[in-house]
């Protein structure tokens, strides 16, 4: 017992000044005081002890976290470096995807250029002949005939100029496709764009594989307005979807009977606030586990070396960047339809 309380207790017990009842009461109070004192002392001692240990524990934890922070900082730097390298590699891959699609275009472009070139060649040959004739008529002094021939030559030269410009346009378009997107949007005729890329894709595939043959059915809604888009970007999307569709039907053709008619349908629709471009095929369709991944970068079902797995991923990003949607509907064994929705208010 506390020394002072013990003194108090002894005094109470020895004192004659209190009745027995009062002594019991007082001794109980002393006992309670002793108990309270003991608890207070315990609390004080424990508070000090816990405070000390808690401080050590927290200091050690802070040291540990500081070390972890430093480690994370180093790891972060390494990660930033890796990320930079990854981005550079991805940029290279994206460029190679562009070049791959350019490759797909080359045959189509060659076919397209061949026509104006034929015109240029033919009309220049005819013009030479006409000029030779004109020289003869000049010698003959038949000014009326000279005049008529000169008019024909002028018409020929106009045609040569027209077809020369057409070839120039095709070449410029090709260059645009191979360059990085300027990102500049311009009002574009969707039907013309789709038609142009459909022909390019088809002829491209025909040039690569003479045996390739597929029906193309187009339905262009003439009420479709001009849409503000980056034409080379959307063109790339259309080309990608059409090329995929042709690939799908040609793959199915390999395993089907002669009765199977590979067909790709291309349709545009005016949807009031948007333009819809649909590319549908009657290929093999896709299973669910493939559909879930087709927009993921680097995912491809094509054999190694035949696809980068970036086509649909880039297409998705391009359509999204136009505020639009790229949707897919597919049924195994029946075919696939990709739908591009481009908002008019874009």
């Amino acid at each position, binding site marked *: 017992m506390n020394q002072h309380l013990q003194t108090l207790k002894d005094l109470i017990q020895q004192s004659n000044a209190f009745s027995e009842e009062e002594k019991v009461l007082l001794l109980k109070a002393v006992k309670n005081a002793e*108990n309270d004192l003991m608890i207070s002392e315990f609390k004080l001692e*424990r*508070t000090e002890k*816990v405070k000390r*240990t*808690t401080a*050590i*524990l927290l200091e*050690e*934890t802070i040291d540990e976290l500081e070390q972890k922070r430093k480690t994370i900082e180093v790891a972060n730097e390494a990660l930033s470096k890796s990320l930079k390298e990854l981005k550079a590699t991805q940029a290279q891959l994206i460029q190679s995807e562009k070049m791959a699609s350019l490759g797909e275009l080359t045959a189509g472009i060659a076919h397209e250029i061949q026509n104006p070139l034929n015109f240029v060649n033919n009309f220049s040959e005819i013009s030479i002949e006409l000029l030779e004739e004109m020289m003869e008529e000049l010698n003959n002094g038949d000014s009326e005939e000279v005049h008529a021939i000169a008019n024909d030559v002028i018409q020929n030269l106009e045609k040569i100029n027209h077809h020369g410009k057409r070839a120039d346009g095709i070449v410029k378009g090709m260059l645009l496709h191979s360059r990085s997107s300027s990102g500049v949007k311009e009002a574009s005729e969707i039907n013309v764009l789709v038609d142009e890329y459909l022909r390019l894709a088809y002829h491209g595939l025909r040039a690569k594989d003479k045996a390739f043959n597929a029906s193309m059915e187009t339905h262009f809604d003439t009420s479709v307005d001009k849409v503000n888009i980056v034409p080379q970007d959307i063109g790339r999307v259309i080309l990608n979807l059409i090329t995929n569709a042709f690939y799908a039907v040609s793959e199915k053709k390999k395993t089907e009977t002669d009765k199977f008619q590979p067909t790709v349908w291309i349709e545009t629709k005016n949807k009031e606030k948007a333009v819809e471009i649909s590319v549908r095929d009657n290929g093999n369709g896709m299973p669910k586990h493939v559909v879930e991944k087709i927009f993921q970068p680097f995912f491809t079902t094509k054999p190694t070396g035949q696809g980068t797995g970036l086509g649909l991923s880039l297409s998705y990003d391009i359509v999204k960047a136009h505020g639009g949607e790229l949707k897919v509907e597919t049924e195994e064994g029946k075919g696939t339809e990709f739908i591009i929705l481009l908002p008019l208010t874009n």
Partner: protein
Amino acid sequence: MRSKSIHGASVSEIKANLENSTADGFEPTAAIVFISIEQDRKAVCNLLKDRNISVFGATSCGEFIDGKQTKGETAILLLELRQKHFSILLEALGEGTLEQGASRLANRVKKEFSNPSIILCPTGIDKNGAFFNGDELVTHLEKKLGPDKLFFGGMAGDDWKLNGTYVFTEKEETDRGIVALVLNGDAIEIKGMAITGWKPMGISRTVTKSKGNLLHEIDGIPAVEMYLKYLGRTDLEDKIGYDVLKELSFEYPFIVERENNETILKSPMKINQDENALFMDIEMPVGTKFWFTKPPELDIVEEVLDKVNLLKGNPDEQADALLVFSCAGRQPVLGPLVNEENDGLAKVWKTPMAGFFTYGEIGRSYNGKQNFHSGACCWVAIKERI
């Protein structure tokens, strides 16, 4: 139902106090006996048996009744339970598994009453020094009895000797088994709660290497090194002779995450120098998330008593008897506050109380599921339905 608590430092004292308590016509039918390993439990049992009092007993690590707390003595709660509403079962595990024993006990319990409630005491440590897996027992019992059945209790102690604990009835005893007081839940209501008061401190930790009860690594750092360093014992030279339990882990156990936002305390019992690992009282498998802890605040007594009101139907509700299973680790940490806690519970329920300091507690935290606990104050109020 009437009840009385008695206490004694010897068989003769128990005999005298038993006679005193029955002098007014009180006729107990059941005795809940918490007795030091040093006492003659056989003699105490015979004393009770001679009076046709059924015994539910467990050895203790300190024992108490309302107003008196001791170590090395005997505390008894005498109950005037109607014979048809209770049964005392002892399930010795023998050479069998804990699952088999728990299953046998559950089947016996179900045969006794259609709606049973149970007070139970498993042994804490057997004669070979093997710890009883309280967590596993609760899991098996809950599975067999159903999640709605209530069971509260504590694991027997042996005054920190750690060389054998016992549970017993007036007929038999075991150092590896369970004693159960099975109550007819339709006639006798039990209410209880388990509270620890320890709070997580610092950042969450993960066990990265462990095997059985040995905890090797925490967050990739040797567990022994981290535990001693973080609790300020880097100066320790004699790790073999260091009593990690008494010196540190009573106050600073780990708090481990488990289902339903509940937690459990797990304590390092000793340092295994050969394996450079902490020997834990309960296994901590790899991947376990846990925290270092802060001991209960000094208002823990108020917290424990306040929470009683959450279970009381009304503030004046009383119980017929109260049992308290308080973790043996609370005593060194909470000092005199433990007496306040135990006596406070008896006062709040206005009823006789007996309890003991345990090697593990079984019960439910407020709104929690049936669980095994460590470091907890687990109380259970018993009341005959009218």
